């Protein structure tokens, strides 16, 4: 039993089930990120934890207490909203202590909590301002401060960074991470941004169409995606998905892909059980950073395969250079060092780290597990 238990929870609107049997146990101090495209049910799940939406079936429990029918204010949770939801008519200080006031906390204690938290978040100089006078980043801090003063069991974040500009978003991301490391609070965080999910979380639940597609640590999710959806959703640029055939060369399974001229190339698999798929079609998943120039290849890898192919487009992005090629009729992207010398039209020897390659069943779209 975890600190926050979501057991077999479903949600239906009338006859339409929008969330299907979600089962997640969150440990104390964990930072769980729910990530997925819009409409995947992540916000619905968060609202159900908060008590803002009813639970159709299943249980949600905090510290072993089932809270299905407990009013939001009695669940000992706090929530940071996408729009921050700061009360426009109240000062920052009043905003932050409103919850304590509603819970009947004496004024002296409220002020003590306010002083502590506002100092922690470095907003103590803003307490008398109205939300309308604050910048986006300041509002974000106040919204977090309002959650922190409550000292709740669980923090809920609903896409808190999506209203900030790109630079501020990165700064606040770091800020939230620092805060979590310092306070060791339990957090459930909803986002559609997979980078936020990767950087912040201790565990990620990738959701799509009302199902939890995969639950695991960021590394598990990134390296061993359990299906095609997770593979393509997490990571930017997205994982290359290339139609391939399993060919046995010297009794070892290889992925047979076509180069730009339609000539077959063979890349040796690390995964022995793919022999069962000999002669069959699969989908080969290779992340862009796994295809490099030979000098940039991972030296620790035991399985670097060479791939000769023509370059279509190069996109220098400062820190990296993205190189596009055609593989089995599809565009595939390679992520090279910034100073790699490649030019469009050139035929180049790429190095593919097949240790990191994954294979998917094209019918079920599930990963073929080793």
């Amino acid at each position, binding site marked *: 039993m975890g600190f926050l238990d979501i057991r077999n929870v479903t949600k239906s609107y009338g006859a339409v089930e929008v969330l299907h049997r979600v089962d997640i146990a969150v440990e104390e101090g964990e930072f769980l990120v729910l990530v997925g495209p819009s409409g995947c049910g992540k916000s619905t799940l968060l*609202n159900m934890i*908060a*008590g*803002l939406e009813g639970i159709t079936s299943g249980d949600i429990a905090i510290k072993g207490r089932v809270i299905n029918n407990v*009013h*939001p*204010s009695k669940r000992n*949770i*706090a*929530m940071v*909203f*996408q*729009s921050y*939801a*700061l*009360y*426009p*008519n109240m000062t920052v200080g009043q905003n932050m202590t*409103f*919850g304590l006031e*509603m*819970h009947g906390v004496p004024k002296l204690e409220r002020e003590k909590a306010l002083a502590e938290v506002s100092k922690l978040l470095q907003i103590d100089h803003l307490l008398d301002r109205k939300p309308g006078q604050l910048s986006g980043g300041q509002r974000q801090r106040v919204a977090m401060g*309002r959650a922190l003063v*409550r000292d709740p069991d669980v923090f809920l974040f609903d896409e808190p960074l999506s209203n900030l500009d790109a630079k501020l978003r990165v700064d606040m991301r770091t800020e939230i991470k620092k805060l979590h490391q310092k306070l060791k609070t339990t957090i459930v965080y909803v986002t559609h941004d997979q980078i936020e999910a990767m950087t912040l979380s201790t565990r990620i639940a990738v959701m799509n169409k009302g199902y939890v597609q995969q639950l695991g640590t960021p590394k598990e999710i990134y390296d061993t995606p359990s299906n095609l959806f997770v593979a393509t959703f997490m990571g930017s640029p997205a994982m290359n998905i290339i139609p391939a055939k399993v060919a046995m060369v010297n009794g070892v399974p290889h992925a047979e892909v076509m180069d730009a001229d339609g000539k077959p190339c063979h890349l040796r698999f690390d995964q022995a059980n793919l022999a069962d798929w000999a002669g069959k079609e699969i989908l080969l998943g290779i992340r862009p950073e796994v295809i490099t120039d030979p000098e940039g290849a991972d030296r620790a890898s035991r399985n670097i395969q060479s791939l000769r192919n023509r370059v279509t487009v190069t996109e220098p992005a400062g820190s990296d250079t993205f190189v596009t090629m055609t593989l089995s009729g599809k565009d595939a992207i390679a992520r090279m060092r910034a100073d790699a010398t490649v030019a469009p039209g050139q035929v180049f020897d790429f190095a593919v780290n097949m240790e990191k390659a994954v294979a998917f069943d094209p019918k079920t779209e599930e990963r073929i597990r080793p």
Partner: protein
Amino acid sequence: MSAVTQDTAVRTGRITRTFIYVVLLVFALFYLLPFFVMVVNSVKPLSEITGGNMMALPQVWTLEPWRQAWSTAQVGVEPTGLRPYFMNSVMMVVPAVAISTVVGALNGYVLTKWRFRGDSILFGLMLFSCFIPFQIVLIPMARLLGLMGLAGSVPGLILVHVVYGIGFTTLYFRNYYAAFPTELVRAAMIDGAGFFQIFWRIMLPVSGPIIVVSVIWQFTNIWNDFLFGVSFGGTSQPMTAALNNLVNSSTGVKEYNVHFAGAILAALPTLIVYIVAGRYFVRGLMAGSVKG
């Protein structure tokens, strides 16, 4: 030219512009003329009206017609002037506006922030009630007011105006609160505020503009109402009904100057509201027409 402007980007030539200004001024004259005539002739002795030009400024300025209209003119059978009817209107308007605005605010709050199955049907029913021809309810309303003992009384008129006003006030507040982020209500719920606390502490403090719109709209509508006043007013007739009586009384000489003064008195409260808070007045009109 780089300044941000609300105006159109269409450009017009000199001749066109002159033409446009002429048309605009002619229409300004058209709208001002009847009111100008009323004002000018309300401060003339009667002889100057019957014997002179209605456009001419008075040769003898007098406030006597105003005094008569206010306190001595024959309205119906009694020479009471319009004052008691003005008071009737005031006593009717103030509570009716206050009640319908408060009810509308609560309704709008429920219909946007505490939605439940079927709420939009209920709202549709309330909204349609704004647009019915009130002739359809005259007969049963007269019966019911009679049964309740409210016929011909100010409380009866208040009831009528509240009942047929909440459709509009609900519409105003609903549209206004619909644009108010629901996340704020959710945040307040998690903070532990209840239904009325959220309304009182979160919604109401930001409702200033729409309260003004609703109050102005209701005030104008109720003050200007004639049909309900003449049907259910009895001995407590409002200003509009009294003005109509004054103007159409068939006894004696038609004292036009007194009629003019009376008409301006009847128009004054809403005109003042319009002059003081025209912006909100227009917003009310728009919100009542373009169901945003």
